């Protein structure tokens, strides 16, 4: 089950929900055809629960929203970008483990 703590974002509301967010925000760029993206899904759900109130966790479907991934030069998924105050603080591509993502967000 997907966590209800995850915010779905699109090209239309990316500025408002991510760049202008009060909380640091992790965006998981994914697509339904991407096996590794689906494989890390449960871990993203867990992170959303664990970091509730500390880090906002968002997902963007790159098929439905091609502009934002284009803007950030994303040509491989899953790519996870950690935003702080509207700026890219860190990013990682591939089916990474939870410890690596936690380290990125705890910095």
């Amino acid at each position: 089950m997907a966590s209800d703590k995850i915010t779905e974002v699109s090209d239309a509301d990316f500025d408002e929900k991510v760049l202008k967010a009060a909380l640091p925000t992790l965006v998981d760029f994914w697509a339904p055809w991407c096996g590794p993206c689906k494989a890390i899904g449960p871990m993203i759900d867990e992170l959303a629960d664990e970091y509730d109130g500390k880090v906002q966790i968002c997902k963007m479907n790159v098929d439905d929203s091609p502009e934002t991934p284009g803007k950030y030069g994303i040509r491989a998924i899953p790519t996870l970008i950690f935003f702080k105050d509207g700026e890219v603080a860190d990013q990682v591509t591939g089916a990474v483990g939870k410890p690596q993502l936690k380290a990125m967000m705890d910095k």
Partner: protein
Amino acid sequence: MTIDHELIIVGGGPAGLTAGLYAARAKLDVVLLEKGATGGQVLNTDWVDNYPGFPDGLSGFDLADKMTAQAKRFELEIKQTPIIGMDLKHDIKTLHLEEGGTLTCKTLILATGARPNHIDIPGEAEFAARGVSYCATCDAPFYRGRTVAVIGGGNTAIQEAGHLTKFADKVYVIHRRDELRATKILQEKVFANNKIEFIWDTIPTAITGDNTGVTGIELKNVKTDTASKLAVEGVFVLIGIQPNNEMIPLDQLETENGFIITDKEMLTSVPGVFAAGDLISKNFRQIANAVGEATTACLSAEHYLAHLK
């Protein structure tokens, strides 16, 4: 000294999950350690047509998901934690965790698999995930209507070149020889595909680009020594694999080119340490034989434990 587990399995691809399934079903005291998501390289496979029991084929993700679910049905404990080292010199094997601390066990199954080789040319690291890819299945849809290059001539390269033509307008296959190593059935498909153009006897020398990502690739013909350039927006490097052995003490067990040597019961040169899947030294790397080796490895580990008592 207390021992944490009877059996530890390192790696959660098809081999690790199969060993885990057998061990959990046999009610061994077992834990499987995986650094990321379970499924291994199968997750990067678009479609699996040659795994028995699925007459219509299935996606790599679905197969990985089913293998994970089957192991979990027997309550296999899967712990997501990277390993940074291990000590195999004693009867009790010790694993060092990245998060700190250790885990000990009586017997160990190594199933850490393999990963794609890098080509080590200028631009490769710089443009990783910005046009340089090791997984067409993962990244092909970003190249809708574009031109890309595939480096390699083996089964993976040829299969993925075919997959890329579903999205890209043009796929160059750059191969250092003048014939393919890929199987006949794959070759026939790819030669019939008019979006694919072969560039034979040629190696890439650099990947070029700008702040938007990859824009081109520089080539050299190995027979004539002629240099050339191609405008491409993606470069798929599909030139074989290397073992995931960084956490394994290679001075403590026998290896061949970094791959672990096993006997027919999947025992390594160290008593109590077994290995299976893409990590071991062998000629053919398929999901089905990884699963078979892991079955043997687990039953051998059980046998080993029974004789310890």
